[in-house]
């Protein structure tokens, strides 16, 4: 389990892991790599773990020490420069806590996003009005209306990943509570939001399933969480889960597998995507 305060991009994580593999393939220990760089071996570890950003001169020295051919070094340097580019979300740094920017990077790079939402419509599928209502209720006193608007804008900007070319597949399981709980006294907010869910579920890359009340308890009794899977086979799945003042990013095999297992049990027990459309439509007509 690791709590990250700094926020590496996914590209940096991939490259860090790749550096580690190349070092191990060259039969070098971290101490030996550190000697080539004239740094402490802890620095090599931090580079490989993407805890510090990759410096181009370091990349050159390390890859040469690992006996990587020149053309591959050049390719690696290009990738490093790309990975070091700040993400689009940096312009929201006024309202974006450090612990959440990693999340934005992960979801933007994921090929598959699976999530479990017990309370609210997943952020990527919210309408602006729904998002605003949830945020106004969720901030206790110390956030002004301007900050709320900035948060809503950030959330809407995140949603662009669903309409880009080659969008990720979004597979969400929502508890029936989500449909049952109005976030506003204005029924239109819920009607529009549920229409949005119905539209999304028609798209080929969004799957929504409802865990119905009538099916009783389910294994998703913990906090909401998301599981990200990446196109790069060497990257492990990552699980993101939030608490009041921060978030956890889990990537150990055992912890990720436990979350995967919960999602799999829930997907088997929840209403099918087809049946879910009917359920959402029924609730929609009730608002």
């Amino acid at each position, binding site marked *: 389990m690791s709590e990250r305060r700094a926020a590496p991009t996914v590209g940096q994580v991939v490259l860090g892991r790749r550096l580690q593999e190349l070092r191990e393939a060259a039969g070098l220990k971290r101490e030996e790599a550190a000697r080539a760089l004239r740094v402490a071996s802890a620095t090599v570890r931090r580079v490989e773990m993407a805890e510090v950003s990759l410096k181009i001169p370091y990349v050159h020295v390390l890859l040469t020490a690992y006996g990587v051919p020149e053309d591959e070094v050049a390719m690696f340097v290009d990738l490093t420069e790309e990975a070091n580019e700040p993400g689009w979300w940096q312009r929201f740094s006024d309202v974006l806590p450090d612990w959440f920017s990693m999340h934005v990077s992960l979801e933007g790079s994921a090929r598959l996003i699976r999530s479990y939402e017990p309370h609210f419509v997943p952020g990527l599928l919210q309408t602006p009005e729904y998002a605003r209502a949830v945020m106004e209720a969720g901030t206790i006193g110390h956030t002004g209306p301007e900050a709320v608007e900035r948060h809503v804008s950030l959330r809407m900007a995140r949603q662009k990943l669903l309409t880009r070319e080659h969008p990720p597949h979004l597979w969400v399981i929502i508890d029936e509570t989500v449909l049952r709980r109005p976030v506003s006294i204005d029924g239109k907010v819920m009607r529009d939001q549920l229409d949005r869910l119905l539209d999304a579920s028609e798209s080929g890359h969004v799957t929504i399933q409802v865990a119905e009340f009538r099916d009783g308890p389910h294994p998703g009794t913990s906090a909401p969480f998301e599981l990200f899977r990446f196109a790069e086979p060497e990257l492990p799945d990552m699980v993101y889960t939030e608490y009041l003042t921060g978030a956890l990013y889990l990537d150990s095999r055992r912890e990720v597998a436990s979350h995967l*297992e919960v999602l799999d049990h829930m997907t088997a027990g929840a209403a*099918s995507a087809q049946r879910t459309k009917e359920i959402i439509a029924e609730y929609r007509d009730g608002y």
Partner: protein
Amino acid sequence: MTTPEGAPTRVDTSRPHPARVYDWWLGGKDNYPVDEELARRILAVDGTVLRGARANRRFMQRATRTAAEAGIRQFLDIGTGIPTEPNLHQIAQSVAPDAKVVYADNDPIVLRHAQALLRGTPEGTTEYVHADARDPETILRLAAESLDFTRPVALSLVALTHYLGDATDGDDVHGLLKTYVDALAPGSYLVLSQVTPDLSPDAIAKAAEHFRRSGTPFFPRPLAEFHRFFDGLELLGPGIIPVYGWRPEPEDVAAQAEGIVPVYAGVARKP
């Protein structure tokens, strides 16, 4: 998902599941530590399983393409497993966008994965049936909601029959296959691959023992037994052959250099 009424939604993830063991061999991430453990244990006694799993996937692709190019527009895949790109409907619908594909699996988790992630072309149909291969009546009845069995269908059971026993084990796999084939129209295809003890008997015996001990009976079959699945059908060239050798593409020829794969494959046409 089409489910027979009252079909139990049994989910037991405390024991390894063959589809997830297979997923680990293919380098997938939809498996749990218990599956990985068995996958590794089998890999230790039979070093061919990684390339065997890949070879089965590639065979499914070549056989599906062959059937689609021969004009078949309906596909029934039993024992679909965890989605792995490219999937059967992608191959079939890349040849013929209007191809109809029905996937059947008995595991609710596996099937939900297929349902969530295997989306076909708008012109074609991609459907999912929750039923067991041992229950051909149910599979055929539910598949018939999407497929027209008076017209040719390519029926595939890729790397599945080695999980089904003989009459003496209560499964009668040859009888099951006959029931399926009897339901097919003339011009239909049967696509099969399965593990054999013929090529590396010791390794396969050990692998089978690991499967059995984990609660999954395993039935490798010699050539004559595999051949019997195709009784009354016309085998397409080159006949029954170790899986990489079935109409290999350059990539398969290259893969053959890695060594044997103790899996037979064959495709036959119903006259």
